[in-house]
């Protein structure tokens, strides 16, 4: 029995294991380094192979360069499937890795991949000829969609150092050192940022053991194959290093940060990431966790279009309703998170005295309602602070701002931010029928004059009664959808001290806790029974799960579910709550792995 299973996910990137009776290795990896591969080549001309006991067998196929047209590409791809039908493996215990045809055509790639989804791994052929950003992206994503979650995807002969993190982020599991060899035979060294020719080098390019042992002038003097071998060892070390970095980033939930950094080395790679964000956001969103403990670094323009950021903005638009004051207060953000724990917000509080709906302007999130300040990533982002907003940041804030004040009506809006932003706010609000007042004096919203002005401008309005109750309601709505907050809080109280809040019913039963480091609410079994958030329900088989719910046990799961979402599950024999370890789509489709880490379960 062989299988592929994902173990750790970070967006579409994952660490998995490919296992058969003869071998087992962790992905992403260089498959040619880890395993013996028998590639049976094309059907056209037999070529002898020296692999005797292969771990992996690639069945013969009809090679299809992406330069061919769609019809012939389709013909050749269909031939591959036909060949596969008649194919029998000679060796025992090896994994068969069929070739997905389809050239540059996403539609074909997806269809052929679907036919191969019951294999443990597939090979995306000619991917090395698709260096055009869009083609590569479409082909890889189509294959990913086609094969589903239980199949490792192999992109042969394409790995170069700066591309590795991005490929893994796109969902590729298997790479190899073939391009490393090819480049070596061309006297081309892999470098951190791309490649460099031997003759351009004045010293060995890195600190791998081969570069430390060898002198560049000596390498230049070596003959043919020897020279190639030295360069190849270096190239391979570079790739292995990048893979280590990448796996490490996946484990720490920082793959996106690594990708944003590494795409800098080439305009094509940057363009590739931008296209991935702009045209395939759904693919990313579906697999990007809703909540994380880690910091989110928003260092680049691309950070503004990160799935987490878009999701937050989207949910503020669709799943948030303000507490209902007649006045709104616009406040600046702070470096310390959550904002209310910062010195500056402690100062603003002296002015607001709990009056008004507070809205914090910030990049890259646009606008954070006070009630959502602990929610991921509002509490978790970090960005380069220079005191100047970029044009892209301003645009993002502006869009969010317009949306907020189109939906929510106020008698008065108090603008308590720095001049530049204040002007922007005024401009947007000008033609709305509400009173506008700017309260920042001498350009410093923290000055005592400003605070006094803020206090005065709000003095006519009621103080809000229960800030933490509003917060729990909003986080519930954000997390499970509008209405769930009120359902939870009906006949219940919020207790505890911020940010460690609990929801206790008037009957004394505990319904929920706020988990501060994620900024999410964990429901008890009583809590889910009370709220019944249907978008986060998982239907399971007739058994009683313990510790964790495995994917094969899932009958149906909502597509709304993303990794780390708080979920509940129900079957004939059990009802429970826990945290999703994979997306709803993955748990429905997949036959492997932990679907939910269970917190509480009860027999029915």
């Amino acid at each position, binding site marked *: 029995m062989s299988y592929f299973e994902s173990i750790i996910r970070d967006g579409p990137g994952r660490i998995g294991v490919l296992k058969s009776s003869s071998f087992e290795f962790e992905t992403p990896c260089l498959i040619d380094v880890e395993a013996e*591969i028998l*590639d049976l*080549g*094309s*059907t*056209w*001309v*037999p*070529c002898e192979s020296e692999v005797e006991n292969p771990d992996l067998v*690639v069945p013969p196929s*009809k*090679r*299809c*360069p*992406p*330069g*061919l*047209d769609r*019809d*012939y590409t*389709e*013909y*050749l791809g269909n031939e591959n499937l036909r060949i596969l039908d008649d194919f029998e493996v000679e060796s025992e215990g090896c994994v068969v890795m069929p*070739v997905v045809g389809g050239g540059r055509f996403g539609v074909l790639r997806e269809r052929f991949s679907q036919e191969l989804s019951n294999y443990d791994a597939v*090979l995306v*052929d*000619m*991917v*090395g*000829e698709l*260096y055009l950003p869009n083609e590569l992206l479409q082909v890889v994503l189509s294959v990913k969609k086609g094969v589903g979650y239980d199949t490792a995807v192999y992109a*042969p*002969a394409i790995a170069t150092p700066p591309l590795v993190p991005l490929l893994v982020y796109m969902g590729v599991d298997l790479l190899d050192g*073939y*391009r490393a*060899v*090819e*480049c*070596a*035979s*061309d006297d*081309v060294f892999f470098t951190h940022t791309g*490649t460099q020719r031997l003759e351009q080098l004045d010293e060995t390019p890195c600190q791998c053991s081969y570069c430390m042992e060898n002198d560049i002038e000596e390498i230049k003097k070596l*003959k*043919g*194959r020897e*020279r*190639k071998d030295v360069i190849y060892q270096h190239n391979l070390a570079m790739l292995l290093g990048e893979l280590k970095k990448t796996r490490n980033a996946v484990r720490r939930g920082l793959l996106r940060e690594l990708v944003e950094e590494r795409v800098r080395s080439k305009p094509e790679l940057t363009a590739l990431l931008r296209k991935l964000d702009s045209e395939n956001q759904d693919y990313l969103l579906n697999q990007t966790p809703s909540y994380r403990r880690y910091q989110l670094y928003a260092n680049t323009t691309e950070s503004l279009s990160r799935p987490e950021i878009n999701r937050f903005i989207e949910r503020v638009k669709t799943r948030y309703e303000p507490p209902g004051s007649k006045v709104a207060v616009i406040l600046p953000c702070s470096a310390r998170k959550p904002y209310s724990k910062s010195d500056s917000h402690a100062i603003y509080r002296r002015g607001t005295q709990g009056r008004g709906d507070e809205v914090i302007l910030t990049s890259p999130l646009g606008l954070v309602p006070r009630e959502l300040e602990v929610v991921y990533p509002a509490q978790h982002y970090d960005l380069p602070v220079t005191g100047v907003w970029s044009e892209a940041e301003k645009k993002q804030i502006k869009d969010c701002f317009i949306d907020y004040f189109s939906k929510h009506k106020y008698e008065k809006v108090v603008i308590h931010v720095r001049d530049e932003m204040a002007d922007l706010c005024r401009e947007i609000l000008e033609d709305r029928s509400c009173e506008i007042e700017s309260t920042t004096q001498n350009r410093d919203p923290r000055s005592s004059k400003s605070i006094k002005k803020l206090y005065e401008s709000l003095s006519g309005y009621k103080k809000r009664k229960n800030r933490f109750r509003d917060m729990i309601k909003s986080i519930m709505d954000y997390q499970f959808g509008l209405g769930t907050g009120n359902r939870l809080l009906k006949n219940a109280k919020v207790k505890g001290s911020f940010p460690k809040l609990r929801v206790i019913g008037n009957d004394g039963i505990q319904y929920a806790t706020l988990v501060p480091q994620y900024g999410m609410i964990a429901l008890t079994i009583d809590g889910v029974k009370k709220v019944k958030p249907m978008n986060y329900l998982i239907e399971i088989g007739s058994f009683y799960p313990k510790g964790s719910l495995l994917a094969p046990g899932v009958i149906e799961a909502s597509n709304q579910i993303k990794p780390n979402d708080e979920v509940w599950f129900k079957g004939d024999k059990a009802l429970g709550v826990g945290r999703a370890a994979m997306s709803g789509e993955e748990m429905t489709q997949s036959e492997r792995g932990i679907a939910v880490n269970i917190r509480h379960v009860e027999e029915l």
Partner: protein
Amino acid sequence: MPKQLEKIMTNIRKTNLPTKNDPKKPVAVWKDKARNNDRPINCLNIILRTTGCSWGRESGCTMCGYIYDSTEKTTVKDLKKQFDIAINKHEEQTKYIKIFTSGSFLDDEELPQEAREYILQKTSKTGVEILGVESRPEFITKDKIKKAREYIPEFEVGLGIESTDNQVLNETINKNSSYKEYKTAIQKIHDAGGKVKAYLMLKPPLLTEKEAINDTIRSIKTVAKENVDKISINPCNVQRGTLVEQLYNKKQYRPPWLWSLLEILKQTNDQPTNIISDPVGGGKERGAHNCGECDTHILNTINHYSLHQEKKYLDKPECDCKTKWKTTLENEAKSHRIYTGCK
């Protein structure tokens, strides 16, 4: 043969044809040396401008752009005129004439009987020993061969067999003839007392370098069994208006290495038939080539071998780029790419 590949070629022709060539002048005429009956002799080469290969005009082989040398219409008069211009270049010591039509010499549509007989007659008067022509197999009849032999006793028909594997012929070359048809044609020619020169193509599109070598060696061995008189290896070159060119432009085709040709000659030297090669565009980017440094040397070696069939020189050439070539042989197939240089 997959209709989809046929369609690709049909579309390419639609875009590139017709061409406006002058039907009154031959395409080219030049002199060189060639091997015949185990010795090098002087040779006159003539390319006549006809309407071209009937298959090439309709769809055609994936690497063949000779059809663009053709013209839309010719008259018998035109063809005679062309031949007159060409045959004027004949000199006393030239004992071998090769007539190409960018199509089939034996196709009556392309070269009407009247014109063909005019050519045969005029050729016979030059006193040459041997006349070489080319034809697709479907136009070959024993009668036509016999007729020609009436004029020139040694009549050699070149057959563009390319490969003896039908999958290769069908799925990479779009040849529209099976090897079986060629075998029949060889039989007919031999039966009628003609000679056969078999052309094999090294490296059709879609094949790897290694597969291409194996395919050609396999084909040589198969063809040699039919007792053909000569085998000529044509390393594929990138011709205008072909599928090969389209792939080449997208860096998905690389003409064969000269090392590969050398390797094939080495491995087939034990075959009973003379094996020759005169790589079109050899050493150039669009023809069979190595790294640029060693190309001339290797082309000379191949040329010398074609004339003298002496194996001992084949092992001589060495160059640093051999590593690159060997890497290609080892890695290209499992890389599932077409190696065209480090991108």
